[in-house]
């Protein structure tokens, strides 16, 4: 087409780039990749290296070297082991609790609620996510203190609420990360064709059985996607434990308390959540769940 050949001369750069897809791709991706890999991944890598180093006991300065002591201490110091297990269990509990609430809510929103209710609920679930992490922790603290709202509300029934302890940590963490689980689950349930529900009840399944044998298997990728957040964020959390857990120690608490005096130990300990999340993400990627986030 004659117009094109005439104009190509006035737009040499565009014409050049248009023909070379790889160059365009490179141009687009170079800068972000440099940032993420060169800044962030490098930092993580440096952290890994620091985990092998020493701390000079006299000057408290970090000395380059090579020692496996920091990693070994993760497995040998009893307090570290118990903290790791405790954190793992808390993270599992949070994930389980989130799924427990997310699935019925998702079914209600996807299949039963009217469109405006559904939209309102979607907004209602997402919005608190943005109210702020720290703010929500303060809010939970406020509600559950001795003279707080929770005890006042339940006083007529004679129950007093949880004090600052592990159950409250689990509750707060679930409160924090619930939207991360609810949204993918809701989206996935929405995509289940309605005739599957009909078929299931045709074959005699009651509500519960349908959920258990039809819905759950179909939304497993979404649950995995949601659980990446609920699990890893709980695994590495330390502020919740600090402010609502009383004296509960989690992996995050240990990392945070060690970073200034003993960076190598903190670095070694950080490898635990990193390793875990990486493995989890790689598994999730294979199930195709990453697109659902």
């Amino acid at each position, binding site marked *: 087409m004659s117009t*094109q050949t005439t*104009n190509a001369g006035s*737009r040499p*750069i*565009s014409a050049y*780039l*248009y023909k070379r897809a790889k160059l365009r791709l490179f141009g*687009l991706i170079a*800068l*972000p*990749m440099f*940032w*993420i*890999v060169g*800044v*962030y991944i*490098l*930092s*993580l890598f*440096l*952290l890994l290296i*620091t985990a092998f180093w020493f701390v000079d006991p006299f000057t408290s300065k*970090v000395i380059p070297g090579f020692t496996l002591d920091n990693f070994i201490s993760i497995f040998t110091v009893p307090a570290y082991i118990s903290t790791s297990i405790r954190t793992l269990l808390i993270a599992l509990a949070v994930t389980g609790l989130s799924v427990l609430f997310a699935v019925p809510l998702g079914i209600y929103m996807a299949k039963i609620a009217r469109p405006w209710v559904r*939209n309102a609920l979607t907004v*209602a*679930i*997402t*919005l*608190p996510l*943005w*109210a*702020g*992490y*720290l*703010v*929500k922790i*303060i*809010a939970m603290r*406020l509600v559950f203190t001795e*003279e*707080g*709202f929770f005890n*006042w509300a339940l006083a007529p029934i004679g129950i007093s609420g949880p004090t600052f302890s592990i159950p409250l940590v689990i509750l707060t963490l679930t*409160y924090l990360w619930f939207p991360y689980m609810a949204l993918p689950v809701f989206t996935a349930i929405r995509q289940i064709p309605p005739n599957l529900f009909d078929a299931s009840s045709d074959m005699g399944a009651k509500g519960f059985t349908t959920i258990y044998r039809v819905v759950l298997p179909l939304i497993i990728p979404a649950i995995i996607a949601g659980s990446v957040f609920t699990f*890893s*964020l709980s695994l*590495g959390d330390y*502020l919740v434990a600090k402010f609502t857990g009383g004296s509960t120690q989690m992996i*995050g608490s240990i*990392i*945070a308390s060690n*970073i200034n005096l003993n960076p190598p130990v903190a670095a070694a300990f*950080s490898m635990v*959540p*990193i390793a875990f*999340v990486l493995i989890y*993400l790689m598994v999730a*990627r294979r199930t195709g769940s*990453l697109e659902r*986030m």
Partner: protein
Amino acid sequence: MYVPLLVLILNSFNQSNISSWPIAAFSFDWWQFAATYQPIRTALLNSIIVAAGSTLIAAFLGTLVAFALKGFDFFGKGTVNLLVVLPIALPGVVTGVAFSNTYNTFLSPAGFNIGYFGMIVAHATFCIVMVFNNVFARLKRMNPSLQEASADLGAGLWQTFRLVTFPQFRTAFVAGALLAFALSFDEVVVTIFTAPPGVDTLPLWILKEMSRPNQASVVNVVATLVILISLIPVYISQRLSRAPDEVR
């Protein structure tokens, strides 16, 4: 889910200093106090600067990645996606500690003192994914033949982007940027580790005050403020990124 937040907001009007319930008397005293108290104002300014800086960087980088992943199929595409999400999927302690370690153990002794900018770098890193998600989702919905038509008519790459592509994803871009701003504004854990000594962002100030029970109600005021400043961009963002078929 909103009950704890409502309790918090109501408590910011609590006249007494102790956060007990039910509230005995309401007053605006604490709001007035907070408005003129210098550390809070400085912290607020810091929060805004850091959030704005990170949003700019994240918006730019996130858009680049979105275009790269949308228009091309290449080896390692999934890995790139993973890398973009990683800063936000990893716990804040890890990200914070990694950056802090790089700044303190490697950069400082080498004479490179990153200070304030270090916060912005860290925040920008985990904000990229916010912009990326929004822009990418919108790009997927866009019709590529419009770009092709533009090229057929003789427009160069930048011209096509400026006149055809950008107006189409503009709202998603703004939505993503707003989310990034809100995220950075309210972030505290990574900030704990990357803030230079003596510098506070608003959430950091709240954190430090939490260990002083006498100031409880001022903290509630500031916390309410943080809720508002985080929620408003998000609400606008939601409206902007709503698909045309969802708008009634």
